[in-house]
C-alpha cells in the first residue's frame, strides 16, 4: 500500500504531544481498555501506525480522535508509558487550529438541560 509520507505531520504530533509515537509496540492494550472503541473507524494503535508512517490524509478522515473522550484509560495502562490521550489531543488540535469546529455550537438541542461542564468541555475539545 503506497502512503504519502508527511514527516512534518509526524513531527508536529510529537511536538504538540511531547510523546514519542515510535515507542509504540502495537501491543493493543490501549484499544482493549478504551470504552469507546466500538464507535471508532480505526483503533487507536492503528492511528499510531499511520502517524509513524506520516499518513496524515489517512487519519484526518477517520473519527477516532473525535470519539476519544480523553478519559486517560489508555494513558495509565500503556506499558511503554506513552501518554496516548496527549497524542489524540495533538491530532485534534492540528485539525482544530485550521479554525474549524467539529460541533455546531448554535444548534444544540437540549442546551437548556445540559450541565455547563458538558458544554464547556465539548467546546474545548471540538472547536477551533
Amino acid at each position, binding site marked *: 500500500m503506497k502512503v504519502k509520507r508527511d514527516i512534518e505531520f509526524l513531527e508536529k504530533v510529537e511536538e504538540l504531544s511531547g510523546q514519542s509515537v515510535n515507542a509504540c509496540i502495537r501491543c493493543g492494550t490501549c484499544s482493549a481498555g478504551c470504552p469507546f472503541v466500538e464507535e471508532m473507524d480505526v483503533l487507536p494503535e492503528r492511528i499510531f501506525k499511520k502517524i509513524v508512517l506520516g499518513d496524515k490524509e489517512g487519519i484526518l478522515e477517520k473519527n477516532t480522535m473525535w470519539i476519544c473522550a480523553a478519559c486517560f484509560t489508555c494513558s495509565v495502562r500503556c506499558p511503554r508509558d506513552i501518554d496516548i490521550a496527549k497524542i489524540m489531543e495533538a491530532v485534534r488540535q492540528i485539525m482544530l487550529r485550521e479554525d474549524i469546529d467539529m460541533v455546531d*455550537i448554535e444548534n444544540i438541542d437540549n*442546551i*437548556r438541560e445540559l450541565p*455547563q461542564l458538558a458544554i464547556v468541555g465539548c467546546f474545548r475539545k471540538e472547536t477551533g
Partner: protein
Amino acid sequence: MAEEEDKKMIEIYVMGRRYKVPEGLTIMTALEYAGYKYVRSCGCRGGFCGACSTVFRKEGDYKLMMDLACQTAAEDGMFLVQLPFVPAVRAEFEIDELNIEENDNVMLEHYPEIARCVSCNTCTKSCPQDIKVMDYVQASLRGDIDRAAKLSFDCIQCGLCSIRCPADIKHYHLAQLARRIKGRYIDPKSSELEKMVQELKEGKYDEELEKLCDMSEEELKKVYDERKFQKEG
C-alpha cells in the same frame, strides 16, 4: 499664525499616514484638525454613546490599546485607526417568553460561545468604561444573571471587547440580555408604575391632556409656573 507657532505640535499616524497636530487635543479633534470629517465613528463626543471606538499604539510601547477617540488625548507618535462598526449579531428572543425560573441556562442558550471563554481578560483590558467584562461573562456562564447585569451597567456598547476576543464572544449583547432579564424578571415590580399605566389606560388623564393641548402659549406658561410639585393630601 503666531498662536499656532506657540502651540507645541505633535505627530500622529492615522491609518499609517503622518499628521502634525497641536498637543492637547483628543484623538477625535486631532483627526478633525488633520482634515478628516466624521461621517461615522462619532456621536455624543462625551464618552457615552460608544461610537468612536479607536485602536492605537503609543510610541515606545508594544501594547495594542483601545479607547474612545473623544475621551483620549492624542499623544506624540500615536499610531491609530478607528473602528466604525464592530460586527456582532444579537441573539433573537422575546423577553416575555423567557422562562428563567425553568431555564437556568438562558444565557448559554442565546450565546453558547460564552462556554469558550478562556479567562484571558482581554475584554476587560479593552474596556474604556473600566467594566469587569470577563467577570460578567463568567457570571452569565454560571447562571448569575443579576451579577452580570450589575457589573455591566456602565456598558456603552462600543464593541472593543468583542473585536479581540479569542472565543468570539459578543460581550455587550450578552450583557444587554442580562440587564433586560433583570429588569423584567428579577427586579421587584414598581406598584406605582403599574398603577399609573392602569390609570392612563382608563383615560384618567385624557381630559386634562386635551385641555393642555387647547391652551395658548401664555396660558401654558402660567399653568407651568403655578404647577404643584407634590401630591396633595
